């Protein structure tokens, strides 16, 4: 498993397209967003933090997960890995570990910059829990989406609904909160995760109330993984 992760890391840094999608795009949009928010305060800081996290996990982690898995399947690398002594869980962990690690590092850097520029989060621990649960959800959704994706090119289409959807939802919840349409916003993938991120950054909400928000996010993890277990394919369709 560590050797697969190392191999993936080498490939990420050799493949400029992946590097750009994964690192530059989310980082550049985050920088732009922080700059914009400094000029005209559009949302409170918690909202900004949540939107930044989703920029990175949706555009970086989620899209890269789907593209990577589709590409490794298409060139039969997944089949090759399954010809070794390593189990399926180990293979997926090895493949997704580097992109997950890079995402977490990226989120940490961006949120630190936001904290330094505009003021830090109220509850760092809760923030970490919120980020981790969001990452888990996007990984699960990525696995499920990869099951419906035939090729890396196809991933540009198949990732759009969830990538745009979660980004829009995080913006919507970030801007307008969950006073209205509460249940609807919280149950959609990313809604309660955004609210949790906002609460963790802004503070002022009892921790127990915030922790309840983990339930829909973790529910989506379960749904996504169950879906992935049914539709994920290890070999290209013949």
């Amino acid at each position, binding site marked *: 498993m560590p*050797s*697969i992760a*190392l*191999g993936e890391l*080498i*490939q990420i840094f*050799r*493949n400029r397209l992946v590097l750009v999608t994964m690192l530059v795009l989310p980082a550049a949009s985050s920088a732009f967003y922080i700059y914009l928010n400094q000029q005209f305060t559009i949302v409170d800081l918690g909202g900004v933090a949540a939107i930044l996290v989703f920029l990175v996990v949706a555009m970086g982690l989620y899209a890269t997960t789907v593209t990577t898995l589709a590409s*490794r399947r298409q*060139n*039969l*690398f*997944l*089949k*090759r*890995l*399954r*010809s*070794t*002594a*390593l*189990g399926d869980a180990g293979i997926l962990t090895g493949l997704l570990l580097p992109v997950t690690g890079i995402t977490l590092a990226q989120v940490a850097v961006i949120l630190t910059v936001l904290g330094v520029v505009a003021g830090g989060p109220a509850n760092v621990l809760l923030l970490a829990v919120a980020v981790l649960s969001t990452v888990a959800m996007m990984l699960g959704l990525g696995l499920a989406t990869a099951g419906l994706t035939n090729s890396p090119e196809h991933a540009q289409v198949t990732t759009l609904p969830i990538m745009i959807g979660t980004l829009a939802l995080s913006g919507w919840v970030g801007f307008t909160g969950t006073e209205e349409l509460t249940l609807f916003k919280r149950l959609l993938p990313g809604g309660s995760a955004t609210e949790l991120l906002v609460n963790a950054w802004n503070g002022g909400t009892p921790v127990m109330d915030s922790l309840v928000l983990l339930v829909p996010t973790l529910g989506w993890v379960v749904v996504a993984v169950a879906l992935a277990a049914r539709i994920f394919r290890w070999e290209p369709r013949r």
Partner: protein
Amino acid sequence: MSSTPVIDVERLNLAYGDFHAVKDLSFQVRRGEFYALLGTNGAGKTSTLEAVEGHRLPTSGTVRVFGQNPRDRRAVRPRTGIMLQESGFSPDLTVRESVRLIGSLTRRTDKVERVLDIVGLTRKAGTKVSQLSGGEKRRLDFATAVYGAPELIFLDEPTTGLDIQARDDLWDAVDKLREDGSTIVLTTHYLEEAQQRADRIGLMHEGVFHKEGSVVELTRTLPATIRFSLPVPAPEPPLQAVRESDGTFLIETPDLQKDLHALLRWAQDHAVELRELAAGPTRLDDVFRSIGSDQTTF
């Protein structure tokens, strides 16, 4: 001495939807044996091989490798090397990185340099897989299969795309592994490779064994052949010689030695020169052709 077969397949069935690719197939491969799985296209040999490798779940029946379920990778794969039919390497990794990665995942120990030397890819060690030729990719595949000299090696059409030198080198490497006791399972389109090397052959047709046995057993049922051409004019040849469209004569015989002797004596007696004389047992090609002709009678 353990007499447990390395591979034990019992009443294997594989179906894809309505298509029944493999039907009630049973066979065993013993330790140290070289077993060739041959067949026409679509005969079910790749499906069978994939079930034995553990890549495919049987629809019914059992497959045992080293007495274990081949899908139990942790138990079976450290003792098994697999050369796939299609490459499946990451284009952005180098040859050395690919061998090191796949090699380490087999849980066997070996030196990357040693394996690259066996397949003649030492000079390409730093080259990205995307820049290799088709033949070089096959050799890379072979390198990962023989990493750590496993007890059981699957070779799925190993020499396709290889030049003659590379082919000879590959078979030399296989011979060395056999000397050390490795069991080999081969599929190939090059019948002479199977004929020369296999201890036993399973000849598949439409999901079942058309024939299974040693090369001698497979070819015994078909007559041997004698071919020659005659100068013109020449007396009518003896025996049941059939004149082929290219002017050569063909004799099919269940008793090669006796009929060849008769032909040579006839030629001697009539002072006739037998040109392009060739005689021999039936080759696997002919066994294959006989399957094909069976089929057309349906």
